[in-house]
């Protein structure tokens, strides 16, 4: 309860400061909107369905892109982890590629896929693939060897071994990587959407700028933060909790 109280005080203070600065009218409202201007923009956006549509479009894209990078990343990560040669060669390449911001793939994506949804998906995949791959590789290494041996001993091999043993055994070790991959996917998506008329949240954000509607810009930014936070804090947190509980890593209270 104390924590909740502190949070309320903090955000109330932040809101008060915002209101005060807006009320002082140091900057014109199209540069520095008021809190009620932003909430009005949010209300209008949801009322005329444009925000709902934008959220749906963006979520669809990020889910497809993320799913692709999870599948590819797991295959790549396992491959890299299970071969010394691949680890020495590919491993280094993957780490160095991770320093490249995903939007740098945009020009390439435009040439390869044209100005289309696929170009956006490509950027999303490139944004999150590497963290999923590295997480999988790491998880495979951290995973106790005994599980793989026990699985083989009980007659599992090949794909069965991967699906029924190696994957579930490494899950607790790759969950944080999957979470990071999600964060990268989400960021890459918004960035890519801002560069192209695409109906998603990124475009709605840019539209606010084009119309000099700073309230709308802030409103969409809040939406992007909220969605990212909810997925991270609700979906991944509960997944982590569930795993830890099942494995007995935390007490079952």
């Amino acid at each position, binding site marked *: 309860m104390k924590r909740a109280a502190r949070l309320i005080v903090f955000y109330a203070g932040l809101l008060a400061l915002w209101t005060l600065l807006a009320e002082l009218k140091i900057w014109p409202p199209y540069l520095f909107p008021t809190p009620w201007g932003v909430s009005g923009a949010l209300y209008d956006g949801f009322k005329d369905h444009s925000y709902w549509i934008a959220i749906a479009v963006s979520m669809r894209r990020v889910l497809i892109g993320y799913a692709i990078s999870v599948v590819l990343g797991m295959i790549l990560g396992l491959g890299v982890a299970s071969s010394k040669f691949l680890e020495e060669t590919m491993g280094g390449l993957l780490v160095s590629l991770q320093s490249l911001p995903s939007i740098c793939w945009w020009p390439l994506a435009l040439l390869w896929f044209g100005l289309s949804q696929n170009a956006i998906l490509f950027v999303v995949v490139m944004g999150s693939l590497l963290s999923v791959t590295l997480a999988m590789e790491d998880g495979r290494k951290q995973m106790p060897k005994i599980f793989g041996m026990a699985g083989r*001993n009980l007659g599992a091999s090949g794909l069965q071994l991967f699906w029924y*043993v190696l994957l579930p055994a490494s899950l607790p070790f790759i969950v944080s990587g999957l979470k990071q991959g999600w964060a990268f996917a989400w960021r890459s998506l918004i960035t890519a959407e801002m560069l192209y008329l695409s109906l998603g949240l990124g475009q709605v954000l840019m539209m606010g700028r084009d119309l000099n509607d700073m309230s709308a810009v802030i409103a969409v930014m809040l939406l992007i933060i909220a969605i990212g936070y909810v997925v991270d804090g609700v979906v991944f947190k509960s997944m982590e909790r569930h795993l830890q509980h099942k494995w007995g890593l935390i007490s079952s209270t």
Partner: protein
Amino acid sequence: MSTNAHNFPARVPIPVEPLTPFVAGVRKKAALGSRPMHKISLEVPKVGLSDICLSYRTQSEERLLALDHINLQVKAGEFLCIVGPSGCGKSTLLHLIAGLHQQTSGEVLIDGKRVQGPGTDRILIFQELGLFPWLTVGQNVEFGMKMKGLSKAEREEKTQYYLRLVHLSQFKDSYTHQLSGGMRQRVALARALATEPDVLLMDEPFAALDAQTRDLLHDELERIWFETGRTIIFVTHNVREAIRLGDRVALLTFRPGRVKREFPIDLPRPRVLEDTHVALAAREILGELREEINRSLEVEYNVGVKPHVEAGVEEQI
């Protein structure tokens, strides 16, 4: 004139093995005290180890011989215990039989056939058990059967059966971390038995348990061995445990592991750890084991003065 003269010779009755009733692949009728009748082939042992050598490179690029020409034969239905000081390669030997590692030279034979990798005809119970924490007790037991492609109904029936065999029926839906050490041991045993292997390989399975639990599991293992008629190779560093359970005890030497001696144990079952006959048999084996332990101490601690295991330490060995 014999009517038979130009016919086929009169039929000679072929000795047929009596059909033993099987319930879920397990011999039904077997009572403690009477040795089960196993099909014992005189020529081909169930498990044959011939000239097994294993060497590997250490970090300092030296070649270390871990196992040196191991020759052992295990009859079908036999309970063989392997004892030796730590570092003699007894666990490694089980891994080789399980097909999880490859020996440098020599052959592992099952029914005379060469082992090429893991197979469900021999299941290893690891020292760390290797139970899957993401599965329930029932799902763990079911795992091997699922890999074999058994139908769901069949899997369910056998899972029930084997859980009952190890007295864990009520814990089918628990996760392994919710169980005690002894219970986890029994899950591992049920999981191994459920794949219905001919050979059960056990790697110091009871080392981490308290004495009471261990005594209990000795009884249970012996009972299950009687009931299922499996061949068991049991690795331990505890000589009394080996005598408690084994038909035969093989003693391995310290690095490189060699079969120093084999001791047949002809004591009536069930045996009791505290029994004087067990203690007497243990004394003989311990005498030989102590030499190996002293050698291992010399090497491991690299001391000039010859260390020795004192008489009191025997109890813990």
